[in-house]
């Protein structure tokens, strides 16, 4: 199959591309246009090579190929930054192919655009993506299907880059589905493990619900704008009478699927069944932020519907709180991080909901740094312990894996909101914007946001203390069959990870510490450069509120207090008096078990959705005849002739005569409908 697609590319796509370039050769922009095509094509080439030949190549070659085809796009993105610096003017590159689809009435080009928003996303994806690729070389070194992993990872990069580069809803959707597919493949990477296969399936299905919303929104856009091109839609939005609230709510539904928000967040924690680098790349840094990106990209539409914005804000706030509360009681280190991701995504959603799109994107960036770092560090811990993920079996690791400890500490402090680290600035910006939005929803979101900040600080330090401090609960000489399929790193005792894994940790740690500098608000003597950088794209959004720096500093103080409280509480419970947490859990048994069972959402969903679907199918297929028509008419006509009732004639009884009866009944219905209804 891989070979086929490669051949296909060779035969059709490349000649067409050449034609395209030839026809545009006269334009001066040509170089840069070519660059845009190359950005996603390179990882795709990596996917094809590793996918076709990887099985036979040595591991070193596979990783070299994967890394090469990931670093090149990163270099191209760097080149784009240079172009931007040289030009001075806002960047707006476009690469358009010949019409991709031209159905009567509307057409879509295969077109890529780079503006400042895209540039930020590109930098995150290629930069963090490259670091995670490096890390994976070490982490996956002894795994079966090494080549398959890197092929999928490159495929993911391809779709993610398409997603952010696209200049139309349709192409965005292609990337959107593509990353979902790659994520499905990667979550189910250990496909011989049932839980992994099920988690992949769950992620896929839950996302389909979101996609349903996205598709419907697209169809509504086609109906009202006759186009799916961003430029066309956005420039006509103000003057077109379209059901913006419906469109935006549907888009938001799509975003809740991909970005794991209420009601569709359930897939993300399960997605942790995938290898840890996948959790870092896809389920923390990049793919899950696609929903935020999409909402920010469509800010023109969302600004036209205050209702939809309020809904987005409420969803974000509620998700932030809900996930944080669940995160407090999890014992699996990756699950804590997973719920933390859901919670942080809630912050970003909230930012979009109060119209502070640039603050949301800012948090996307800082979150990519510190959450990727946290996951990779957690992976390093798991690696060190030979596959152990349960925090109850950790403790006192800070001396034994010092690099992991120090880098992870940077991540923990950053996410918890330690002053002047990256997470502090971005979270503060969101809370500030929410508070000054001047709406009741904004104030409400702010209050929840502050409380969640406290919870975040608590559960992150809980994780930190339980893993690195206190008494050691490590079961020495863990045999690797404990998490058999998961991390078969052998049983050579607790050990620090190799440099290929720690180097990315260190780089990310630096970024997590200083990454916030680009967005220092004026109140702290900065210029809020990040927001201004995004102005060309998002300017029409939220009005800049001229709040006094006094308010800003006051709000920051509140947030810092929340951080300190969380830290203090965690210290009290897990260091000063270890064991108190268990007592508290006992005292508050109902609440604890509610949290421990994640509010029973999975069970409810299973019962309500999957169960009812199966029921409907059972009723539709076999029940109608038995219980409905036949028994009903029997009840009416005669007084229960049991002999007839026992004749269970089902629609698919296998009996030709009953089939003929169905055909005749259908025919009669069709004839009746045509003649009598009209």
């Amino acid at each position, binding site marked *: 199959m891989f070979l086929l697609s490669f051949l296909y590319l060779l035969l*059709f796509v490349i000649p067409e591309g050449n034609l395209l370039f030839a026809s545009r050769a006269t334009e001066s922009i040509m170089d840069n246009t070519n660059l845009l095509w190359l950005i996603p094509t390179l990882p795709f080439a990596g996917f094809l090579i590793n996918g076709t030949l990887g099985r036979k190549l040595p591991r070193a070659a596979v990783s070299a190929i994967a890394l090469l085809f990931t670093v090149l796009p990163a270099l191209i993105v760097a080149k784009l930054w240079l172009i931007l610096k040289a030009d001075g003017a806002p960047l707006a590159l476009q690469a358009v192919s010949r019409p991709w689809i031209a159905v*009567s*009435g*509307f057409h879509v080009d295969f077109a890529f655009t780079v503006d400042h928003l895209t540039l930020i996303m590109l930098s995150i994806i290629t930069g963090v993506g490259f670091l995670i690729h490096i890390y994976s070389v070490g982490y996956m070194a002894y795994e079966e299907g090494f080549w398959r992993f890197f092929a999928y990872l490159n495929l993911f990069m391809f779709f993610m880059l398409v997603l952010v580069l696209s200049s139309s809803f349709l192409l965005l959707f292609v990337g959107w589905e593509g990353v979902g597919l790659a994520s499905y493949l990667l979550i189910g990477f250990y496909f*011989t493990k049932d839980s992994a296969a099920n988690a992949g399936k769950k992620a896929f299905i839950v996302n389909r619900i979101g996609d349903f919303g996205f598709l*419907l929104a697209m169809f509504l856009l*086609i109906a009202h704008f006759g186009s799916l091109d961003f430029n066309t839609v956005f420039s006509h939005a103000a003057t077109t009478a379209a059901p913006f609230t419906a469109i935006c709510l549907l888009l938001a539904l799509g975003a809740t699927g991909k970005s794991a928000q209420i009601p569709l967040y359930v897939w993300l924690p399960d997605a942790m069944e995938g290898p840890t680098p996948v959790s870092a790349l896809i389920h923390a840094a990049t793919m899950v932020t696609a929903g935020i990106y999409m909402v920010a990209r469509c800010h023109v539409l969302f600004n036209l519907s205050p209702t939809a914005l309020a809904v987005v804000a409420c969803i974000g706030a509620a998700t932030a709180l809900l996930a944080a509360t669940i995160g407090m009681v999890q014992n699996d280190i990756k699950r804590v991080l997973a719920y933390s991701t859901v919670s942080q995504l809630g912050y970003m959603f909230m930012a979009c909901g109060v119209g502070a799109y640039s603050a949301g994107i800012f948090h996307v960036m800082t979150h990519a740094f510190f959450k990727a770092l946290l996951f990779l560090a957690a992976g390093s811990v798991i690696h060190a312990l030979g596959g152990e993920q349960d925090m109850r079996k950790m403790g006192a690791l800070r001396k034994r894996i010092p690099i992991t400890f120090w880098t992870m500490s940077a991540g923990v402090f950053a996410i918890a909101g330690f002053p002047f680290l990256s997470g502090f600035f971005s979270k503060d910006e969101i809370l500030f914007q929410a508070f000054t939005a001047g709406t009741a929803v904004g104030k409400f979101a702010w209050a929840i946001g502050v409380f969640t900040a406290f919870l975040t600080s608590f559960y992150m330090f809980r994780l930190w203390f339980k893993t690195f401090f206190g008494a050691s609960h490590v079961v020495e000489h863990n045999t690797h069959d404990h998490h058999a399929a998961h991390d078969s790193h052998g049983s050579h005792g607790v050990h620090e990870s190799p440099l290929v894994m720690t180097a990315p940790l260190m780089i990310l740690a630096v970024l997590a510490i200083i990454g916030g500098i680009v967005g220092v608000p004026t109140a702290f003597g900065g210029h809020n450069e990040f927001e201004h950088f995004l102005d060309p794209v998002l300017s029409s959004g939220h009005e800049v509120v001229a709040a006094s720096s006094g308010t800003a500093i006051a709000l920051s103080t509140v947030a810092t207090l929340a951080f300190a409280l969380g830290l203090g509480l965690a210290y009290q419970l897990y260091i000063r008096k270890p064991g108190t947490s268990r007592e508290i859990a006992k005292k508050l048994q109902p609440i604890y078990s509610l949290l421990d069972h994640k509010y029973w959402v999975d069970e409810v969903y299973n019962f309500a959705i999957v169960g009812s679907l199966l029921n409907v199918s059972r009723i539709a297929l076999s029940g109608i005849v038995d219980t409905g028509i036949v028994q009903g008419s029997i009840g009416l006509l005669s007084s229960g002739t049991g002999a007839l009732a026992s004749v269970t004639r089902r629609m698919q009884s296998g009996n030709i005569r009953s089939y003929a009866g169905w055909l005749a009944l259908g025919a009669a219905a069709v004839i009746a409908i045509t003649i009598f209804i009209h």
Partner: protein
Amino acid sequence: MSTNLLALLPELVLTITGVLVMVLEPVIPAGKSRKPLGWLAILGSLLSGLAAFYQLQIVNAQGTLTAFYSTIQIDPFSIFFHLLIAAVVLVTLLGSLDYFESPITHAGEYFALVLFGAVGMMFMTSSVELLMVFIGLEISSISTYILAGFRKGRATASESSIKYFLLGSFATAFFLYGVALIYGATGSTSIGPIAAGLAITRTPTMAILAVAMVLIGLGFKVSAAPFHVWTPDVYQGAPAPVVGLMSTAPKAAAFAVLLRFLFNGTPMLHGHWILLIEILAVASMCLGNLGALKQHDVKRLLAYSSIAHAGYLLVAFTGTHQNAVAGACFYTATYAAMNVGAFLVLSQLSGFSERIRSIEDFTGLALKRPGMSALLGFFLLSLIGIPFTGGFFGKFYVFSGALQNGHVWLGIVGLANSGVACFYYLRLLAAIYSRPTSDSVAYIPVRKVTAPAAVALAATALATLGLGILPNKLVHLVERATPTTTAAVAVQPTQQ
């Protein structure tokens, strides 16, 4: 070459090859391989495809061809379907060359019947005369009735065959009665004159009744609910390559007839039949998808899925004329590519004896047959409708066409259905990519994929991929295919 000959060139080529195969069959001694006959049939379908291409050149240069007193019409619409049918037949033949494990003496009949069936289907798409359509329908049906029962010696085979035959003839009777009624109402059975006759008919109710009956007959052929009951049983009992063929090519032909008949023949009654189409579409999508949820037999599961896909295809009919034709043609082509592909994989995996058939049998397949699993996975993803596969764009065209024409709720039902559908496709996919249960993989016999089958698989995979990546190439072709009516012959309505 005379116009009459030219108009039927692809059908003629197929007929002659079919007859040749039949004549040569007894000449080959019993016990000897029938493969040469298969190659002859492949050559015939290839030539017939080329003939259709030749027709396309002629039509491009001279415009629409009409022959046999305006009963046959060759335009881009019919040529599109000729090419599609020829391609499906070619791929099916390639895939079934080595399908018969032990040399069966009557294998030659199989190849001939496939060709004869194709003749009927092609004939259906190029006729603009309902009686001619009826003849084409019967030629294709009779061949497929026999093909459905071709795994002789197995109880399910003859059961599948008789079910298909009895119910099929039953539906055909409705179709013929409808044709007779429309002849009475409009004085003609030709598409163009029917449209003209409807405008001045004095018996509108009879005309409406006629449309309903024609719809019933064709609804059966495309297995639209509530006329779908035969589909799962027949598909389960029939040989896998034949199911691939009969779930696509005859359906394509029946849809072509429906498109011509409804949009060109009875546009006057649009208000009447559009409601019916909507009901059939919703019923097919819902019953098909719900039915598939609980299936264990993979062929049966795909049968229910094909009912659902007929529903999606019917959604296309609710668009404007041009959108409907473009959408339906595109969807037929993509559906043909991915479904024939899926059944080819099944037939390659399980062979003539069909030892692996239930989802449980497929558990852990990926470890033993990674290539085949990847292919089947790809086709399943396309059936779900993942972007960069033909299935996605097929659904996209169909639903955007319906929504543009204001059928919002139909679009919602359709999209919700395609969401439900991913449950059962994924069930199969997840089974393939999961840990093998103790014995499931062990007894999968590894059949070597022969070169012709590999070519067939590659062709379907490439087509599915190509339609997903560069749909425009096909869209241009199908958009030209909007059928045109023949110059309306002056007719008077029946005097009563």
